[in-house]
Each structure stands twice: as C-alpha cells, then as structure tokens.
C-alpha cells in the first residue's frame, strides 16, 4: 500500500536574493513499512522534502499525498511523528512529561498517557529515566527520548531529520541498531535524512540520492539486503557494493557543478 506519493513536487522559496529552488520535480513513492533514507550534499532539499511531507512547508507545484490525503489533512489527523535534528525537549518537563506532551495535546486519558509513556520509554531503552529532567541525560539519551515522544501517539509514519547527526560513531551505531529493531517491531514507515552513506545503507530498504541547485532526486536505490540486519552485515560484499552505488550516485549529482 502506498503511504507517501510525490508527483513532480517543486518547492521554491522566495528570498530577498531571489527565488531558491529547494525542490524541483521530485517524484517518489513510499510503500507501507518502507525505511527510506534521503542522502545528498548540504542544501539539496532533504529537510525541505521531509517538511513538505509533514505539511510544515507547502509545495509550489506538483502533488503530494500522505496516507491518501493532502499533507495538511494528514497532519491534522496526526498521521506522522517528526524527529528533529535537536531533541527539543522542554527543560521544565521531565522525560516522561515531555513524552506525554503530545498525548495531552491530543486528548489521551491520563491512564492511557501513563501506559503509552511507559511503553515507548521501554522501546527506546530509557525505562527508569522518566522522572529525570532533560539536562540530567546525555545527548544520545535525549535524542532517544525525542524519538519516544514521536512514537508515543502511534502514528504510522515516522519522519526523522538527521536525528543522530550530532552524536558520536559508537552511540550512533547503537541507536541505529535500536532504530532497526523498533522499525521491525512496529512496522512503521520511516523517512530518514542522513549524511552518512553507511548509515543510509545499513538502515534502509530504499535509498534516495539527491543533489542540489535545484534540489532533485538523482537515484533511487532499492536495497537487496534482508530486513534482519546485524551490525556485521556492514562487512559483507553486498553491503559494500550498495555503498559503492550510493557513492556513485552522489558523485553523479556533483557532476553538474
């Protein structure tokens, strides 16, 4: 079943220095349960595309459908959870308080909130940290808490914009494993922006390579890797070949400059 459908989506920002073509004729189909990574050089429109799906930006041309609806309607129906690059937890709320914030806004009952908060805390391996304040947690733990917050209301789609960008390699590996695990358990559709080729290859069922000026898709690579992926899969020839393909795609995009 198709969850996200983009047809010739373009998005132009009008700025003081003239128009910026952040996206140009982007077409992409994302199926239910896909794990799609967006990779490309800075400024190629990855964030813009994710935000357009989330109805935080509006395309200037083309059609975009999320869960069979216009993106803004999908947003109103709380069809997605969005994870930003920074955790953005409220410093005056505990971790549990932060996670139940969207639940309060959406009108879940108190008992339901407590139960869901507990469940997602377990899911991101933060059980026992609910009563702590954000500043008492490491950066990686805070980012996991922000993922838990996006998961709490059980939207089918999870959109993540470089969620692990600011973390070191080892923490990142652990979180990648945890994310895959979570994806398998929940069967969600995930859109994931990254700058790292290994991360994209390790996580995705579909890798979207983009290039800038104007922002567009240069390659869409379907991963032949199995859904069960131990970290060691990164040393297999299939993995290395796939990474090679992504690297070529990125180089192709640069050829225009």
């Amino acid at each position, binding site marked *: 079943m198709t969850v996200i459908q983009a047809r010739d989506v373009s998005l132009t920002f009008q700025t003081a220095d003239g128009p910026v073509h952040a996206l140009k004729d982007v077409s992409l189909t994302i199926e239910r349960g896909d794990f799609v990574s967006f990779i490309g050089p800075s400024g190629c429109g990855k964030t813009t595309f994710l935000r357009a799906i*989330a109805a*935080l930006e509006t395309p200037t041309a083309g059609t975009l459908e999320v869960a069979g609806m216009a993106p803004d309607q999908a*947003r*109103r129906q*709380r069809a*997605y*959870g*969005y994870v*930003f690059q*920074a955790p*953005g937890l*409220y*410093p*005056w*709320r*505990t971790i549990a308080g932060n996670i139940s*914030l*969207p639940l*309060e*806004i*959406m009108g879940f009952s108190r008992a339901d909130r407590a139960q869901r908060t507990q469940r997602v805390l377990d899911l991101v391996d933060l059980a026992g940290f609910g009563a*702590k*304040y954000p*500043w*008492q947690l490491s950066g990686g733990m805070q980012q996991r808490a922000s993922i838990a917050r996006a998961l709490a*209301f059980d939207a089918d789609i999870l959109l993540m914009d470089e969620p692990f960008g600011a973390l070191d390699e080892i923490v990142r590996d652990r979180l990648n494993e945890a994310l895959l695990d979570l994806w398998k358990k929940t069967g969600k559709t995930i859109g994931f922006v990254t700058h790292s080729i290994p991360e994209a290859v390790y996580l995705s069922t579909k890798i979207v390579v983009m290039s800038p000026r104007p922002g567009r898709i240069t390659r869409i690579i379907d991963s032949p890797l199995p859904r069960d992926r131990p970290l060691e899969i990164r040393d297999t020839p299939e993995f290395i070949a796939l990474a090679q393909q992504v690297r070529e795609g990125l180089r192709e995009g640069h050829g225009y400059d």
Partner: protein
Amino acid sequence: MTESAIPLGPGVLGRGFGRALPILTVLLAIVVIWYLAAVWMNAPWVRDQAARADAVLTASDLIRQTLTLERPVLPAPHQVAAGLWDGIAGQSITSKRSLVWHGWVTLSATLAGFAIGTVAGIGLAVGIVHNRAMDQSVMPWAVASQTVPILAIAPMVIVVFASMGVTGLLPKAIIAAWLSFFPVLVGMVKGFRTPDAMQLDLMHSWNASRAQQFWRLRLPSSLPYLFASLKVAIAAALVGTIVGELPAGATAGLGARLLSGSYYGQTVQIWSALFAAAILAAVLVMLIGALERLTLRRMGLAR
C-alpha cells in the same frame, strides 16, 4: 543523581563572610563619605551661629555640633538611623508619625497598582503575540505612555479622580500601574516569543491549538522573563505610588511624609522616609526573587 550534602561549619561562615566583605567595605566607605559630607555641608550654619553668639569654636566642637543639629542640611547617618528606628519601632503603628503606618499606606497602593500593571502588561503582551493588528499598534502607544513625565501626569490623575469623589488608594494605584505595566509588557512579549521555530513546528506537527501552544509552550518559556520584569515593575510601582502621594493634600504614605518633611525643613524625616521607601523596595524585590527561585526550582529550570 545525589544532592550534594550541604557542608556545615566554619566553611560556610567563611564563605558567607567572604561574599559579604566587598559589600561591607562599600557600605563602610559610603558611611565615612556621608559623615564627611554632613560635617562639610552643615559647617557653614554652625559657624554662622557661633559667629552670632561670639563663641569660639574648636574643631571638635564644630564636628560635634554639625552632627547633632535639629534641622541639618544633611543629617548624619546615626541621626537618620535614629529617625528611622523611632518611626518604625518608637510609635504605635496606628500613629500618623509611624513609618510603619505610612509604609503600609504606600505598600497597599503599590501592590494594587503592581497587580493592575502586571495583569495589563501580560494581557497586552498576549494580544500582541496573537494578533497582528495589536502587534503593530500597541507598542508605539505603550512607549509613548512612558515618555510622558509621570510627575506631570500624577497630579492630573489625582485631581481628576478627586473631582469624581475618588481619593485614597485607587488614584495612586493607577499611577503605579501606569509605570509598572510597561516592563511587564516588554518582558512578556519577548518571553512569549522565545520558543524557537523547531518548538513551534513540533506543536504544529501535533496539530496543537493556539491555546494549547500558549499554555504548554509560550507561557512556561516566558517565566524567566516574567520574573525579571516583575522585579522592575514592583520598583516602578513603588515610585509611582510615592509620586502619587506628593501632590498637595495627601496626608498619608511615604510620599506625603517626604513632602511634609520638606515643608517644615525636617531633613531627618525626609531621609527616614526615603530609607523606609528604599527598604520597602528592596524587600519587595527580594520577595519576588524568592518566588522566582521557588517557581523555577519546582519547574526543574534552576539547577
């Protein structure tokens, strides 16, 4: 997380003393300069008197007399302290000579004006943040209101209210509110706008209503700004109240005390009232500071 135990004993006293030392040094310097100034400023009068009486003044006579005059140009610190002590502790608190009574009159109008000003400031800030038209129209008027000298406004307010038969607390509270709403307005507009684009986007992604966004994001983010503005506002309210007590006719309040002191050349009374007002302001600001620490600690914002 373990709370570090609070060490007791000489360490604490030493640290407290270490922190107090600079303050005490400055205080001492002020007192010394004050005494010197009192001698210097009162000396002409004392010399004059001596010349009239054909008395010969020794240096120590001169100093003693300059510091004990009934109506000095500048009273010495111990005279002010004595006047203050007499006004606070030496009178029954219902007496018109009691600084506690006058202080209460001023304090009640200050608090009323502060409350009105705070509510008005927050209300206008909410409007400015949520309404484009208000955003563009309110601020210039608010600024204009503060550029009008309060000394010119205050008597008019008093007179207008008096002509309607309203005297006492309310007109003074209005003047206090006039001065105190402004810092609250400026601080809260800034405070309500502190949430960054990402936090607002998050709220938007959850399809939060504007009310939810206000109560759950804008208001809590603005609290540090609120307390900073409240400290300025309460001091401004006190100034406004005292100015409101200056116009002729007022018989109660620290402002009236200041004015009657100056009518009758009672400089000790003027200075005592001034210090009473300063102490009142300091206590009020400290109370807000305590409330701030308590609130921010409960919110987990103070570490």
